[in-house]
């Protein structure tokens, strides 16, 4: 019945509210103090919450808030001093457990005390600017337990020791660690930082400095990176298990600095296992690990990128300047493509498709491809090869992707106009000899070039396609109109080419045999009849013919060029002709003639002519006989012309010259365009602007630009400024 007794006492106090019992405050406080003791002694079950709350309320109401508050502080402090002693007395590993145990108990007690003193917390404390009860309890714990000198260092050492144990492979009680760090966090971020985080980071720096030094001495690059990654993940895991989340960035930066940043130069350049060997051996996983680790430190990726760039440049330079490789253009380009594919794969798989790495790759290719002036020609030859034969084994889509890759190489070229020159020649050959494997593939490449370089670049190429198409229609018209008349004569197929669209070749006509000439004249009459105001010139150097021939009793068909046809037709009437006679009769240019004769007489298996004396080369006084003993299993014999696929040195010079010649009007046009809009400009600026305007096609030589300017001055498009000779003026 103690409850009833207490109530009586309370009611009495309430009655005497006006004249407060002088001992009232002391009595009430004693009750509350007793309750606090009981709470700390786990003996709270006998307490009446309502009564205690009311007592605390009354104390505040009767202006004894100050007494209540200071009493709370001193009672709690004395309890905490007791607790500190018991924690201090805990032996060895029991220390942390005891600390945690007491912390849990203190929190519970604090909550209950706060419940009792809720009214004080809400009214008295804000108006007197005192610390709220809960915060007060934490502060007292911090000052009396954590900062108690016999506990403080022991706590720090114990925690660091446990981390060290875990780093060396032992299993520790992570739950205990988590509770302890959480306690420090609850006491405020500052308490956590000073009592744990700061020393923890210092110890970590030393640990990883020593460890990384050991690793770097004994491991190769890949191994080292594996270990570094493992350590990094361990630390991240540690934070997630029992440290504050804010520590993650701090501890990872320690590992990054000590294990990666301090050693990154050495790692990248490590003999036989560094970056270059990884690239060469295509170790995607190792490269990826290096990328993701180096990404974490400043300048890490720059080092990888720089070393990779110089590696690509060097190997690329070796590739394009290797005289062995120059012999086979198709293989040369294939090597470039393969190299690019390999590096692309590395960037894709290991370097996260990093844009800066792709840029580095592109700039390196641009650098070394242009080291070889023949690159444009070779790329065009490669395309030629693929478009002639490509479809045999590659599927449609493969051709598409291949063309895309070639376009990639094309983009690297500085002299795009040189490529255009060659491409035009090769395309002309393909179209005229009807060797194109796929019209679609041809057109798709044209479209790609167009999107890359604009309409101007491909208009002539497209013109060539149109010519072939119209020629086809014209021939149909011709055959319909005069087909009956010439049915007995040789069949004629004419391709009418627009001058200018096609690569101009010195048109060295030859004397056609009379049978052919007749048909040709008929076509000329037909064509000029339908199209007025045009001129037709025969390009005999580009035609082909199919001849019927009898060798002994064997009937054969010979597929030859127009020149070869002219030569062979001579043998219809005679059996033997000297070189001179042939030259006179046909008027074929001697270099071509020699080449034709070589292919007719000197190629084994296709020697429809016999030469006296028997030798490889053709001399002016050689004699040629019809070889009626010629035999072959085939019915149709294709006699090729001995043509170098690759250009010979003089031809190359010629193409070069033609390219230079073509550049002149382009440069002039650019100069005039610029001057028209700017009116007055100095020399250096003109050169800069011209280079900028033309760089999508080629890199103009400043000397050439200067010459063009001079020529324009001569022709009075420009003039030099009278006062400042460096300035040019546009003359409208």
């Amino acid at each position: 019945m103690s409850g009833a007794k207490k109530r009586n006492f309370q009611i009495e106090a309430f009655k005497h509210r006006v004249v407060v019992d002088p001992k009232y405050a002391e009595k009430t406080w004693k009750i509350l103090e007793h309750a606090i003791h009981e709470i700390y002694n786990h003996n709270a079950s006998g307490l009446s919450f309502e009564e205690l709350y009311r007592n605390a309320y009354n104390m505040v109401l009767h202006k004894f808030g100050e007494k209540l508050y200071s009493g709370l502080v001193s009672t709690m402090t004395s309890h905490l001093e007791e607790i500190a002693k018991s924690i201090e007395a805990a032996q060895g590993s029991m220390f942390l457990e005891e600390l945690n145990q007491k912390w849990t108990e203190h929190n519970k007690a604090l909550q209950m005390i706060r419940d009792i003193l809720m009214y004080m917390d809400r009214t008295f404390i804000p108006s007197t600017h005192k610390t709220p009860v809960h915060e007060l309890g934490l502060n007292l714990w911090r000052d009396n337990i954590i900062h108690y000198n016999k506990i403080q260092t022991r706590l720090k050492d114990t925690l660091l020791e446990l981390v060290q144990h875990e780093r060396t492979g032992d299993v520790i009680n992570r739950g205990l660690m988590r509770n302890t760090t959480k306690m420090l966090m609850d006491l405020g971020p500052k308490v956590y930082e000073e009592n744990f985080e700061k020393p923890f980071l210092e110890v970590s720096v030393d640990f990883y400095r020593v460890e990384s030094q050991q690793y770097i001495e004994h491991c190769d690059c890949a191994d080292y990176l594996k270990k570094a990654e493992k350590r990094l993940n361990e630390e991240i895991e540690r934070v997630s298990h029992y440290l504050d989340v804010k520590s993650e960035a701090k501890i990872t930066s320690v590992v990054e600095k000590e294990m990666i940043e301090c050693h990154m130069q050495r790692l990248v350049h490590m003999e036989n296992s560094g970056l270059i060997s990884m690239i060469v051996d295509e170790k995607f996983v190792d490269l990826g690990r290096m990328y993701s680790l180096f990404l974490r430190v400043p300048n890490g990726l720059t080092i990888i990128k720089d070393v990779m760039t110089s590696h690509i440049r060097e190997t690329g330079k070796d590739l394009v300047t290797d005289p062995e490789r120059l012999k086979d253009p198709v293989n040369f380009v294939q090597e470039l493509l393969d190299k690019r594919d390999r590096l692309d794969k590395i960037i894709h798989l290991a370097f996260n498709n990093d844009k800066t790495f792709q840029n580095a790759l592109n700039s390196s290719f641009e650098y070394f491809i242009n080291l070889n002036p023949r690159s444009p020609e070779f790329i065009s030859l490669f395309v030629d090869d693929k478009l002639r034969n490509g479809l045999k084994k590659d599927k449609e889509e493969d051709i598409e992707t291949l063309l895309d890759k070639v376009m990639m190489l094309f983009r690297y070229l500085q002299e795009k106009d040189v490529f255009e020159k060659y491409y035009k020649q090769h395309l002309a050959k393909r179209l005229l000899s009807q060797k194109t494997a796929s019209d679609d593939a041809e057109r798709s490449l044209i479209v790609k070039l167009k999107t890359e370089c604009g309409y101007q670049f491909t208009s002539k190429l497209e013109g060539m396609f149109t010519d072939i198409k119209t020629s086809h229609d014209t021939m149909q018209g011709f055959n319909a109109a005069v087909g009956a008349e010439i049915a007995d004569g040789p069949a004629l197929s004419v391709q009418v080419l627009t001058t200018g669209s096609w690569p101009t070749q010195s048109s060295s006509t030859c004397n056609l045999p009379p049978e052919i000439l007749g048909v040709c004249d008929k076509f000329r009459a037909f064509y000029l009849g339908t199209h007025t105001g045009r001129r037709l010139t025969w390009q005999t150097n580009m035609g082909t013919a199919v001849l019927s021939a009898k060798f002994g009793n064997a009937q054969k068909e010979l597929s030859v060029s127009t020149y070869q046809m002219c030569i062979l037709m001579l043998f219809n009437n005679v059996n033997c002709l000297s070189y001179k006679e042939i030259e006179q009769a046909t008027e074929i240019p001697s270099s071509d003639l020699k080449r034709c004769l070589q292919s007719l007489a000197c190629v084994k298996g296709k020697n429809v002519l016999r030469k006296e004396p028997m030798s490889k080369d053709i001399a002016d006084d050689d004699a040629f006989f019809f070889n009626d003993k010629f035999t072959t299993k085939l019915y149709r014999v294709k006699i090729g012309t001995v043509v170098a696929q690759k250009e010979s040195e003089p031809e190359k010079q010629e193409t070069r010259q033609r390219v230079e010649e073509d550049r002149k009007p382009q440069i002039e046009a650019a100069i005039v365009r610029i001057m028209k809009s700017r009116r007055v400009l100095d020399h250096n600026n003109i050169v800069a602007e011209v280079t900028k305007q033309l760089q999508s096609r080629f890199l103009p030589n400043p000397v050439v630009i200067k010459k063009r300017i001079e020529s324009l001055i001569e022709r009075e498009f420009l003039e030099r400024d009278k006062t400042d000779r460096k300035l040019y003026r546009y003359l409208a």
Partner: protein
Amino acid sequence: MGIQKDSVRFNVSGRIFETTATTIANAGRNSLFGAMFDDNWDLQPNATGTTEHFIDRNSDCFAVLLDLLRIGELHVPPNIPEKLLYREALFYGLLDHVRSAKWGPFDGNKLHLSQSITGRAPGDGTAIRAGPDGGCCVAHGSMVHVYDWMLEEHPPITLDYQRVNDVIWADSKSIVISACERLGRGEGGMGLFSASTGELRYKFHVTHENQVKSYTAGALSFSSDYKLFSSCKGRSNEYGIGVWDQVTGKQIDFFYEPPGWSLGDADRLQWLHGTNCLLVATLFPRKDNCYVSLLDFRDKSMVWSWSDIGAPITDERRVRDAIAMEDTNSICVVNEYEDLGFMDLRFAAGSVRWSSRSRLMKGKMPDEPCYPKLALHEGQLFSSMNDSISVFCGPDWVLTSRLRNSYGGSICDFSIGGDRLFSLHSEENVFDIWETQPPPPIM
């Protein structure tokens, strides 16, 4: 909560209440009930063996508060004094519940007059300012009376008994007042006071060339980055706008009044958050002309200004109050007849575009008129005129509501804050509290 069965019995001073644990849970952990039913407190069955909790408090109030927990609405029978209910709510830790059940989020078109308070101060009121959490303070002559949200009066504030020019809430616990200087004594100026105890916490000083000067502080304003602005008149013509750091209390800047302009006598200061500028308005009849300007303190420039100097003087065009409306980049002004006028802040030399509202007031002015005042709150524009306050809404500022309480005469000042509107009457010493009713719990 550690209650086995859902029903709970209370014995409140002899009256038995039975309710459910769910209802009690509405009180929250931070209340007497929340603590009482926490697992930590092992509730003992009392002598009779029933789980009945004795509480030694007023049972009528307990009934009201229990209903508040049950239905979320506050219904106070007329026989219970409101103050007693507040006391009881404070005991249980339910004051916040009562507060939010009393009035809801502010809406100028749904206001109802909740209460009128008669003060005991003599003389006309100067200003009334709503506090952030529902309280207010009223300046009369040299005194400032402070009321909390329960409208209980706290100790009054005074700064050397000098005439108070303006008063502003720094936060829910402190108030800054500006007062005239006291000739020859170097007193007056500006002070920061505790709202609950009325004690002076800090006094702001004005220094010029490292010398502390005596000065008269006028209109006040705070900026979002804890700066305090005040119009200042010093003894030796140090007129202008002073700036103090709210945290350190130190003067950090001073914008001197340019010749031919008025800053030190300003009636109204307003900080514009969007543009980082301070609106300064000096109005008739404090000066013969009106001056409205925007100051940029970063480069000490006056970025916008307007004055009626040189304009033909007719009373109809006299600007009596001005307020900047950042959402529409304009300044709203009002004349003696409550006509609203607008100026565009985007054009440097604007003129007032008066809205063509009918002049209802013209010709029937009361004997003792008050000048109109303006206020802006969440897109609603308020304008006081005589004994009523008009509410304007929408892009064209259409009149949507009018608040009027005929007792007390003309309204000399009003203020909005803490989801309440306070209006101060000039003839009788009385102020009104307007509230929006809380939304019903079931909708």
